[in-house]
């Protein structure tokens, strides 16, 4: 065996050794087992080399794109390959194509909004005007509408996730420099904590300001009351008219703004422009018709991983693909309430020593240690 005189660096440079460490199979296991029996003095070097390979592989893999970056690249590619009219021109300066994409998105959305205004044929709700005015100039906006019968999860570029009920829609900047979105309908928000950069949800007549929390909003298009309910954290709700100011700490009367803590909710009555604090006997999140994601406690205690994944799949309407024979027997203890989807996934993967990637509407889990 050539490895008999190997030093640490020799092991590290041997591709067979690297392949065995990273992707062991039975034949290689036998070979290296035999080697160690024949050369017991090499055992410590071999073990050390094994650690080096693993850590080298891990540490050279630290520059992966975020989930939001991946989605943006994916969308851009899909958009560009369908632009059949633009002839092939080799790109000269690298930031050219970025600008072009941003511009085309703005244009398309501009048209969309105009059409919408016409069809509405009336004044836009106060909240929508505020949202548009507040967006920094040149911001590219997306509108996602859930036309499906199942809830739809949207991942925002700051890492927050929004689960939209069927028939609802959300407008949001492609890149959240200011974290502000506009909602029509019903959704459950899980917001990444960033106290310096508050997250604002505008609806027809109300703005909800949060610092990192989870909550649901029900804002029907028509003049029915708007309801905001908090699951974790703290939010401030403002009723909107031309004069409402969201940024200086509010001097408004209780009728124009309310602070809500977990399991509290508020209702906005359009006719009177007033906010009413609700004292629910039954938590909003337990009432029928509530999104699964809002009902879930995401509290796992020695729970089999297969159950954890099933819970996440149901809550976010996304398939999770994983190696069931390897990971299925692992169990997990964690409290993931209020965290956005990708934080939940990261926490689970960290516990399993696994990785995840989003592929279309699937999450693929790779790696991880086998549990017995």
């Amino acid at each position, binding site marked *: 065996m050539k490895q008999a005189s190997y030093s640490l660096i020799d092991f590290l440079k041997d591709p067979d050794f690297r392949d065995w460490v990273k992707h062991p199979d039975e034949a290689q296991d036998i070979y290296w087992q035999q080697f160690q029996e024949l050369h017991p003095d090499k055992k410590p070097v071999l073990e050390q080399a094994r650690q080096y390979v693993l850590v080298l592989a891990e540490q050279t893999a630290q520059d992966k794109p975020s989930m939001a970056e*991946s989605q943006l690249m994916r969308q851009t590619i899909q958009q560009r390959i369908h632009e059949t009219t633009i002839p092939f021109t080799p790109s000269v300066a690298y930031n050219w194509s970025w600008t072009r994409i941003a511009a085309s998105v703005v244009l398309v959305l501009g048209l969309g909004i105009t059409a919408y205004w016409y069809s509405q044929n009336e004044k836009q709700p106060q909240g929508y005007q505020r949202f548009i005015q507040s967006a920094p100039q040149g911001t590219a906006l997306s509108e996602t509408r859930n036309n499906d019968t199942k809830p739809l999860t949207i991942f925002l570029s700051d890492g927050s996730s929004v689960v939209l009920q069927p028939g609802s829609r959300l407008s949001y900047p492609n890149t959240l420099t200011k974290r502000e979105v506009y909602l029509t309908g019903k959704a459950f928000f899980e917001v990444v904590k960033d106290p310096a950069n508050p997250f604002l949800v505008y609806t027809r007549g109300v703005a909800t300001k949060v610092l990192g929390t989870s909550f649901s909003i029900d804002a029907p298009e028509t003049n029915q009351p708007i309801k905001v309910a908090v699951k974790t954290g703290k939010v401030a709700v403002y009723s909107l008219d031309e004069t409402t100011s969201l940024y200086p700490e509010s001097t408004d009367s209780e009728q124009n703004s309310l602070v809500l803590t977990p399991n509290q909710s508020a209702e906005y009555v359009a006719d009177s422009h007033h906010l009413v604090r609700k004292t629910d006997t039954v938590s909003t999140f337990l009432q029928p018709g509530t999104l699964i994601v809002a009902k879930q406690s995401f509290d796992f205690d020695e729970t089999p991983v297969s159950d954890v994944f099933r819970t996440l799949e149901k809550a976010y309407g996304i398939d999770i693909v994983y190696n069931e024979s390897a990971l299925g027997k692992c169990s997990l203890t964690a409290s993931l309430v209020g965290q956005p989807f990708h934080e939940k996934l990261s926490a689970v993967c960290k516990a399993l020593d696994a990785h995840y990637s989003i*592929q279309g509407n699937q999450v693929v889990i790779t790696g991880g240690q086998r549990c017995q």
Partner: protein
Amino acid sequence: MASLPTFWIHSTDQQLWQGLCEGDDAALTAIFDRYHVTLYNYGRKLSSDSDLIKDAVQEVFIDIWRMRATLSREITSIKFYLYRALRRRLQRIQGKYQLGEDIQEIYDDETTLTVINEETVQIEEESRDLLRRRLQELLTQLPKRQVEALTLYYYDDFGIREIAQIMDVNEKSVRNFLHRGLKALRHNRNWLIGSLLILLFLINQ
């Protein structure tokens, strides 16, 4: 957001490539989903400008779509193809990025470096955690091309010959990059203690 026909997810590279050549955009998306994360990770070893890398990664995929009619239908490794394409693209658009042979690095011949004597090197038990921290720091200090070679070899599982073709150097240079990187890793084990001492010294000033 278009969703992916599930049958592509478990397809082989060869099947995906066929699909791409036949103009199936879902195949392109599947290729993107399969390889863009590692490709981007590799790109970031060539430049720390993440917008530049995102853009270049996108262009690589858009390019293979536009050129699908002229691509050879047989491909041994899509991953290899994408990596080489990304590096060439970056080389083209980033004039300042020096990709020629680095004289100083070529100067050391491999034979003169293989002098680490097993007896003089103690095998200490080193925790994975310590090794991890040490390596994290080292990777920020090594020359870019050594980090690039280490990434392609240890993370991306490429062979020496493929790495040489991706990096556009000969195989001996690749071995050299790897060797120098590993040697630095082997020799900076006292780095942590050293830097702690310096820190203490500074605090005491």
